[in-house]
């Protein structure tokens, strides 16, 4: 059975090419993925991300539960609306999913998790919630639209009431605020300025149409992937999964080791890996000559082999970039080789981030 988002008909109206994405029929592009990519880097584009799973965690033990569930520490969140990116690991220290947590109060949080992992995430959370005084509520009655790009906020402002404009004015990155029917967050998956907006199903089509009217370009999953890869953001299932430590997926920064007594799931294993210093790491690779780096290609280094976890052609840089998991001794600035179509091709090792706010960053 294929799921359709509340915006399905709007995609067809805009001439979208639809594909199956983990059980959801989603737009891959509306003609040209590269044009959509450029729209987000230079102007404003929008993505239907209604397939993503919204989960509210509420109750007396909400904070206590999340301090156990995820590798970052929600106790660091002190300002209502502040968001936190982190991972949820199993007892073996493997990444079950990455997610964003919005803090409203110590008894009220909103989680946004991947749609591809929805069932196992919900099952895991439910299992771990035993003994905690909380409720876990999925919120499927909302659509979600990401509006991204240097002109995104200005274009969205055309659709907002004066009260809503006041509410989002001067919002720092990584915050979310409920204003009337809309939950507006300064988050995204492109490396550009913009919002992710949660809107009731009943208002979603109208909101999408109004965005079209103010010149926001509809963008599909294809552009979403090249944008996130340029920004060096992980994609669950490619760059990490349950067999991968957060230390090997450029997610060490999302772990809070202090306070020491916080016993998050997977801590023991990940702490031992950290002490041993033997985990591989996720780096960026850049190929300036012809060719496109792709997932699962072998990376050959003097310290042993690695693997490309995701690779693509970067429309902004006009050459290929990739994320790759390689032995920890490989350093930024090194030259390594990638096996492409039976040939070894030299590539440069960079930090796992290539483009931010329209500019090259390596």
């Amino acid at each position, binding site marked *: 059975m294929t799921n359709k988002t509340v915006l399905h008909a709007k995609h067809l109206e805009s001439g979208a*090419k639809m594909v199956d994405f983990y059980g959801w029929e989603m737009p891959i*592009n509306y003609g*040209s993925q590269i044009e959509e990519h450029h729209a987000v880097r230079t102007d404003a584009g929008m993505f239907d991300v209604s397939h993503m799973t919204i989960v509210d965690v509420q109750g007396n033990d909400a904070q206590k539960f999340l301090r156990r569930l995820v590798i970052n520490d929600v106790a660091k969140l002190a300002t209502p609306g502040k968001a936190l990116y982190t991972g949820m690991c199993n007892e073996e220290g493997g990444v079950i999913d990455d997610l964003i947590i919005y803090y409203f109060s110590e008894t009220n949080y909103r989680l946004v998790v991947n749609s591809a992992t929805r069932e196992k995430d919900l099952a895991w959370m439910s299992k771990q919630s035993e003994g905690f005084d909380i409720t876990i509520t999925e919120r499927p009655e909302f659509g979600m639209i990401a509006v991204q790009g240097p002109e995104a906020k200005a274009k969205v402002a055309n659709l907002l009431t004066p009260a809503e404009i006041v509410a989002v004015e001067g919002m720092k990155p990584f915050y979310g605020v409920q204003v009337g029917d809309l939950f507006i967050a300064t988050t995204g998956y492109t490396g550009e300025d913009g919002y992710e907006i949660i809107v009731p199903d009943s208002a979603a089509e109208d909101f999408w149409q109004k965005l079209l009217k103010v010149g926001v370009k509809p963008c599909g999953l294809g552009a979403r992937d*090249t944008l996130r890869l340029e920004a060096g953001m992980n994609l669950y299932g490619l760059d990490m999964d349950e067999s991968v430590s957060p230390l090997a997926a450029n997610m060490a920064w999302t772990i809070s080791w202090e306070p020491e007594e916080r016993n998050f799931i997977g801590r023991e294993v990940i702490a031992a890996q950290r002490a041993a210093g033997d985990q591989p790491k996720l780096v960026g690779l850049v190929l300036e000559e012809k060719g*496109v780096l792709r997932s699962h290609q072998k990376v050959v280094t003097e310290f042993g082999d690695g693997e490309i976890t995701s690779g693509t052609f970067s*429309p902004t840089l006009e050459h290929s970039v990739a994320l790759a998991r390689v032995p920890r001794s490989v350093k930024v600035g090194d030259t390594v080789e990638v096996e492409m*179509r039976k040939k070894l091709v030299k590539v440069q090792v960079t930090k796992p981030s290539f483009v931010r706010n329209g500019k090259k960053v390596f």
Partner: protein
Amino acid sequence: MSNIPSELKYVTSHEWVRNEGDGTVTVGITEHAQGLLGDMVFVELPEVGEAVSTGDDICVAESVKAASDIYAPVSGEIVEVNEELEDSPELVNSDAFGDGWLFKIKLDDAGELDDLLDAEGYANSIDED
């Protein structure tokens, strides 16, 4: 259903072949194929003068999505390649049957053209995909 011009010949691997009537054919990939591949980013063309046999992989089309081999639809010698594609690979997307052509082959045996699919045959082969 995408456009499949009736004056061209086809191969199930999605190449089209136009008989130029002078012993040479022009080869490209179909509109259907470019749609499957998505935006083209590089096209690695064969060398002019290269001798090719039917079914050889002689060219690589790299799109945002995947690298795809392009096969020689007939045997012969490569007499020209579309150099425009070096800087504008997107021509394969915007004009698959025209400016997005890939290469020209001087036929070893014009009889080989009879073995290729006509538009209807190709349309049926896509339906089976």
